[in-house]
C-alpha cells in the first residue's frame, strides 16, 4: 500500500511539473498582456507590476476582433464538418471493407501530414487564385479540412475498428441500407469517438496559421492572422501581441476546457468498452 502511495505521489509531481512547463508560456503571455510595453521587455522581468488594460484597448481599437473571431469560428466548424463528411465514409469503408492496400493508404494519408505545408504553398496559392478562393472563408475551410483530413480519418478508423463487424451485419440482415447502417448503428455506437475527433479537429483548425496567413488578407482572415498582425519588425509590440494572442486563444481555451470530459471519454473509448 505504502509503495503504491509513494509512486502515486512521485508521479503527481512529474505530472504537475510537465503541466506547469506547458502552461508557463501561456501564463507568461497572459501576464505580459497586462504590462506596459516597457515593462514587458524589462530584464529581469518584473514579477510585480501595475496591471493595465491599455494593450487590450489598443488592440481592439486597431482591429475588428469580432470579424476575425467570426471567421475563426466559421472556418474551424466548417472545416471540421467537411472533414467529417469526407472521413466518415472513408473510415467506414477502410474499417469494414479492407483490402490489401488499406493499411498502405492509411499510412500514406498520415504521411502527408509530415510534408511541410510550405512545400505545396505555390501550387495551392495558384490554384486558389484561379478558382477565386483567395481570401474567402470557403477557400480556407477547404484547405483546412484537407489538412486535418488524415488525422480525422485515422482517428475515426481506429474508433470504427472497435465496433464488431457482426453488429453491422446484423443491421444488414435487419434490412438496413449502408446509409442506414451508418446512421442508426455505427455512428451512434461511436458517438464519443466522433465527438473527440471533432473537438480535436476544431482545435487544430482554430490554431491553424500557415494557410490563413498565406491565403487570406482581410475578408476571410482568422484570429491567427489577427494575432500575427501585431508583430512588427521594429518598435515595442510584445505587450500588445500578448493581448492579441490572449484574445485569440481565449475562446478555444474555454471551449477545450469545457469539452475535456468528452475528449477523454472519446479517446479512451475503445479501452473501456
Amino acid at each position, binding site marked *: 500500500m505504502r509503495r503504491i502511495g509513494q509512486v502515486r505521489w512521485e508521479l503527481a509531481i512529474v505530472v504537475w511539473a510537465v503541466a506547469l512547463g506547458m502552461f508557463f508560456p501561456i501564463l507568461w503571455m497572459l501576464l505580459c498582456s497586462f504590462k506596459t510595453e516597457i515593462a514587458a521587455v524589462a530584464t529581469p522581468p518584473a514579477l510585480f507590476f501595475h496591471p493595465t488594460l491599455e494593450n487590450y484597448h489598443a488592440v481592439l481599437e486597431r482591429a475588428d476582433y469580432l470579424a476575425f473571431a467570426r471567421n475563426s469560428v466559421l472556418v474551424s466548424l466548417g472545416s471540421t464538418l467537411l472533414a467529417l463528411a469526407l472521413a466518415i465514409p472513408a473510415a467506414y469503408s477502410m474499417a469494414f471493407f479492407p483490402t490489401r492496400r488499406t493499411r498502405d493508404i492509411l499510412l500514406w494519408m498520415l504521411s502527408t501530414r509530415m510534408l511541410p505545408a510550405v512545400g505545396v504553398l505555390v501550387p495551392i496559392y495558384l490554384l486558389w487564385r484561379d478558382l477565386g478562393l483567395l481570401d474567402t472563408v470557403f477557400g480556407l475551410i477547404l484547405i483546412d479540412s484537407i489538412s486535418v483530413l488524415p488525422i480525422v480519418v485515422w482517428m475515426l478508423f481506429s474508433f470504427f475498428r472497435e465496433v464488431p463487424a457482426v453488429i453491422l451485419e*446484423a443491421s444488414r*440482415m435487419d*434490412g438496413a*441500407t449502408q446509409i442506414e447502417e451508418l446512421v442508426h448503428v455505427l455512428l451512434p455506437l461511436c458517438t464519443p469517438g466522433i465527438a473527440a475527433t471533432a473537438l480535436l479537429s476544431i482545435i487544430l483548425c482554430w490554431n491553424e496559421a500557415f494557410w490563413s496567413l498565406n491565403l487570406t488578407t482581410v475578408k476571410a482572415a482568422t484570429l491567427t492572422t489577427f494575432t500575427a498582425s501585431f508583430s512588427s519588425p521594429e518598435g515595442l509590440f510584445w505587450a500588445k501581441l500578448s493581448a492579441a494572442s490572449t484574445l485569440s486563444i481565449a475562446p478555444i481555451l474555454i471551449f477545450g476546457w469545457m469539452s475535456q470530459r468528452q475528449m477523454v471519454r472519446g479517446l479512451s473509448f475503445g479501452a473501456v468498452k
Partner: protein
Amino acid sequence: MATVELRNVRKQFGTHEVIHGIDLLIQDREFIAFVGPSGCGKSTLLRMIAGLEQVTEGEVLIDGSPAQDVPPAKRGLAMVFQSYALYPHMTVAENMSFSLRLSGTPKAEREQKVRTVARILEMEPLLERRPSQLSGGQLQRVAIGRAMVRQPKAFLLDEPLSNLDAALQGQMRLELARLHRELNTTMIYVTHDQLEAMTMADRIVVLNQGNVEQLGSPLELYQHPATFFVAGFIGAPKMNFLDAEVKTVDAQHLTLMLTSGTSITVPAPLQKLNANEKIKLGIRAEHLALEPEGELRGEIEALEHLGPRAYLHTRLADGTRLVAQTDGDTQARPGDHVAFRARSEATHLFNSSGRALTRSDPQAEPC
C-alpha cells in the same frame, strides 16, 4: 415460407477454396441443420445464403429466384448470430423493432408486434433494458426475438446455443423445436454439436472440409452413415471402429480377421470384396453385448454410469479401444476381463477410402 437452393456453390477466400461445390435443396418449413467440425465451412455456407458473403461460383436461389445480386437486406431472411450481435445502444424493445422501423412500420404496429414476440419468448419484463444488463440466456432470447419480429422467410441460426451452459442449452433446444413448430418457417441451423442437430433437425447436412458428406434425417445418418466420417461424427458415444482384413467372402457372409487375431462373420455387403482387402468394421456401443463366448476380448478401463445404462470403456488385446453399452446396474468393474459379441447384422463396413459398404438387408433398429 421459403425454399433455399444451392447449386454447385463454391467459395474461395483469396486463392484458398473452403467450399467445394455444394448442391442442396432446402424445403419450405424444413428445419435443416448444418453440422460438422470446426472450420469445415458451416458458417461460410450460412453467410452465403444470408448474402453476407459473396458466392465465388454457383448459385443461391431463394424461393426459386437467383439471389446473387440481392443484398442481405432484401433477401427477407433473419439471422441469429453466435455472439448475438445485439445493438448495444438500443433497448431490447428497440433492438427487436429496428427492422420494422427501417421498413417504415407505424409505431403502434411495431409495439404490438414486439409485445407479441416478447410474450412468446417470456421476456416482457426485459423490454426496456439494454443488452449490457442481460444474462447470456436472455441475450439469446432477444436475438431470437429480433429475428422473429420480422416474420422472415427463413431463419438462419449460427451456433445460437454455444455460449450457453449445458442446462440452458437443453432447455433452449426444446424451445427452438417448439418455436419451429409454431412459426412453421424454414430454419437453417448451424452447429458443431451433433446432439443439437440430432434433437432438432428434420434433416441434417454433414459437412467436412467444405464438402457434403451426407444429407439425411437424423435416424438415417445414425443408422446408415454413408461414410466413415459421418459414422464417427454422428452419435454419442462415438461408433467403435476395428481394423479388419477380408478372409473369405461368399454371397451371404463375410468373414473378417481382426487385428487381435480373432475372426468375425458378418452379413456380406452388396459390393464385391476381395480376399486380403483391408476394411474398417464399425459397431455402435449399443450393439455390443457382454457374453463370455464373445469374439471381442479385453479389459475394462473405466466405467461410466448414466443411471439407466452404463458404458464400459474397454481396451482390447491389440490395444484398440471399445465402448460398449450395458445395463445401469452392471456388476462389471474396471480391471475385469470381459468379452463382447457384436450384433453382426448391425455392423458397418467401410472400405479403405472411407465409403460405407451397403447391404441389401435392412439394418437393425438401435435399441
